[in-house]
C-alpha cells in the first residue's frame, strides 16, 4: 500500500536538521477541492443514477442504445444540459480525485508533475471533446446509412 519510509537523517531536536515540509501557498485550494468533491458528489448521484436508469433500465436496456437512441436524447435541450453538466462534474470530480491519488503515491516531484500533466491534458481533451460533441451534434447527419431517429427528414 505504500513505501516503507521517508528519507530522514537521524536527529535529535536540538541539532536536528528540520524535516522539510514544502510550504503551502496559503490558499484554500485544498479546502475548495475537498468541498467540491462533496458537493459534486451529491449532484452526480442524481445525474448518474438518472443517466444509468434511462440508458440501462428503461425500455430495452443496453440493447436500446444505438445512434438513434443517443440522437433522440440530444434532440432535447433537457438531456443536452443534463449530460453536459454530468460530463463536467464527473470529469472535474474524477480528475481531482486522481490528482489526490497522484499526490499520495508519487513521491518524487518529477513523477508527480509528469503524471499530473498527463492527467490534466487527458481530462481537458475529454471535456472539450465531450462538450463539442453535445453542442455540435447533428442528430440527422447527411449520408448516414443506418437508422436515424424518426424525426429526421427522410433523405
Amino acid at each position, binding site marked *: 500500500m505504500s513505501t516503507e519510509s521517508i528519507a530522514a537523517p*537521524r536527529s*535529535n*531536536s*536540538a541539532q536536528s536538521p528540520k524535516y522539510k515540509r514544502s510550504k503551502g501557498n496559503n490558499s484554500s485550494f485544498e479546502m475548495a477541492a475537498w468541498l467540491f468533491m462533496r458537493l459534486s458528489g451529491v449532484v452526480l448521484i442524481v445525474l448518474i443514477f438518472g443517466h444509468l436508469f434511462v440508458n440501462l433500465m428503461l425500455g430495452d436496456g443496453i440493447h436500446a442504445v444505438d445512434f438513434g437512441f443517443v440522437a433522440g436524447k440530444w434532440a432535447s435541450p433537457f438531456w443536452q444540459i443534463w449530460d453536459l453538466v454530468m460530463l463536467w462534474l464527473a470529469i472535474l470530480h474524477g480528475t481531482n480525485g486522481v490528482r489526490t491519488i497522484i499526490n499520495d503515491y508519487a513521491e518524487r516531484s518529477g513523477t508527480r508533475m509528469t503524471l499530473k500533466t498527463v492527467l490534466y491534458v487527458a481530462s481537458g481533451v475529454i471535456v472539450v471533446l465531450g462538450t463539442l460533441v453535445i453542442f455540435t451534434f447533428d442528430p440527422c447527419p447527411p449520408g448516414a446509412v443506418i437508422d436515424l431517429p424518426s424525426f429526421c427528414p427522410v433523405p
Partner: protein
Amino acid sequence: MQVHKYDVVIVGAGGAGMRAAIESGQRARTAVLTKLYPTRSHTGAAQGGMCAALANVEEDNWEWHTFDTVKGGDYLVDQDAAEVMAKEAIDAVIDLEKMGLPFNRTPEGRIDQRRFGGHTRDHGKAPVRRACYAADRTGHMILQTLYQNCVKHNVEFYNEYYVLDLLTVEEEATREDGTIYLQKKTAGVVSYDLATGELHVFQAKSVILATGGAGKVFKTTSNAHTLTGDGMGIAFRKGIPLEDMEFFQFHPTGLAGLGILLSEAARGEGAILRNSEGERFMERYAPTIKDLAPRDIVARSMANEVREGRGCGPNKDYVLLDLTHLEPAHIDAKLPDITEFARTYLGVEPYTEPVPVFPTAHYAMGGVPTNIATEVLQDNDTVIPGLYAAGEVACVSVHGSNRLGTNSLLDINVFGKRAGVAAAEYAKTADFVDLPENPEAATVALLEHVRTSDGGEKVALIRKDLQDTMDANMQVFRTAESIDKVLADIASFEERYSRITVQDKGKRFNLDLLEAVELGFLLELAKVMTVAALHRQESRGGHYREDFPDRDDENFMKHSMAYLDSNVTVESSAESIAGIRLETKPVVVTRYQPMVRKY
C-alpha cells in the same frame, strides 16, 4: 566525542526538569538532556492531583498545608522548606493554569479541588479539599503542559541522551572557622547518545539534576522501568551525600501483583478498603480520617491485615479497594483512567466488583540534599556552586519520612521553578569552570568495563534477585535481621555484577548496555537505603522497624546523610558498612514541635 557549551544544563525532562527549563530557557542558554523523550517521563503517570491551599471550594490556608506536610512527614520535614512549598503552591498552580493546564472546574468555573490523604483543615480536624486535579491524569496534564510550554519557548532538548557522569572539580577552601576542606565546583556532565553510542560532554556553568526516582530497586512498584535513580547514583559516586534514603514510600493501592498505581484519588472520591471479611478495616487503624490516613499508615495497615490472615484471593495476599457504592457516572468523570487499568490489567469491573490491591513501592523521600534555593549540598551546609537539584531526585526535605499525596507534583513545580531561576541567575555572573582533563575518561572506562566484561552473569537476573530481596525484606516492615539479609544479598549481587555479560555489542540503541549501567546505580542505591535503614533504629513515616516500633525523637530526629567513603571498612554492623559513611544532619524546626502522629 563532542563537546558542547551551555550556560545551564538540565538533566531530566520530567516535571521538575521542564519546569526549570521554562524558567532558565528564557534567561540563559539552556540545554535539557533526557534519556527519554520528554513526554515519556514518569511525571505523566501521576494521577491524583497537586495540592495548594487555593480555598476554591472550602476554607483553607497555606499554614494548615504546612502543618499537614510536617505532620505527614512525621516531623522529619525541614519546616522552612515546607513553608516555602505551601506558600508558593498557590502560584505554582496558577502558573500552570496560565500555561494552559486543563484543570477540572467547579460550577463557578474555578479550579476544582478534591480530598487527599493527610490533607486536613485546621491542624487535623477534618479532611479538606486541597488537591487541584484534572480527572485522574493530573500528572499527564502537567507533563504535557510543561512540554507544550517548552515548545513555545524553544527549549533545546537532547532526547535520548543518558547522562552518566557529573563533572566536578575540587579546590581547597577555608571555612570561616579556619578549617580547610575540599570545595566541589560544577563543570558539566558527560552523556551518552543512545542513537549513536557516542559520548557528548556538556560544559556548563550550572547543572540541574532532575532525574526523578529510583523505584526500580523494588519489584512491585508504580515506577517506570526507566526510574533507576541515575541522578542519585551519579551524585553519590561523585562524593555528594544522599539524604534520608531509608525512607521509601509504599503506596497502599497498587494493582495486586502488578504494582500499577490506583491513585489515592479513588479514596479521595470515596472508595474504601476492605479485607476478606468485608470489613472496612481502616476504621480500626485511623478512626478519624480512616481510609484517607497518610500512605505509610494505610500501607502498613493493609500489610498487617494480610499478615493476620484477612487477605483476599487464592493466596490471601491482597486486600480490596471497593468503589461499588459510587455512582458509575461519578467514577467515569473523576477516575476514568484507573478504572480502565483495573479492567485492562486485572479484568475486574470496578463498578460492580472491588479491585485487588496491595502496597507498591512508589516514591523516594530521600535523595540529593539541597537547601531551599535548590542548591546541592556537599555536606550538611556547604553548597556546591552551580549544582542544583529538584524533583524526586532531590531531598529538600519537604517530605520528611513520608510524603503526602499530591505534594510531589507540587514539589517539582515549586522547586523546579526555583532551580531554573537560580541556575540561570548563577550562570549570568559565574564563569565556566575548566573541564577536567579527559572529562570523559571515567565514563569511557565504565562503559568499556560493562561492554567487555565476560563472566556470563545476566543483568536481568541480578536485577530480579535484587528486587525480590528488597520486596521481601525492605518493604513496609523491616527488622535488623531482614535488613542484614539484604546487605548480604547485595554483597553477592555486587560480586556477580562484576562478572556480567552484555549481549548487545553494537553502538546503536544499545539498551542492553544501559540496563547494565542502570543496574549499577540500583545496586548502589539499594545499598545506601539498607545501610541507612539499619542505622535508623526507630519507626518513623515510611520506615517501620518491627524491632523498634516507636518513634525516637531523642536519638533519631535527624536526617541521615550517606557518603561514599572507601576508608570505611567495617563489615556489616549497626553503624556502617564498607564504603559507606553515615552522618546526620539536624532537622529545621520553625513552628511545629513534634507531636504524636495520630489520625
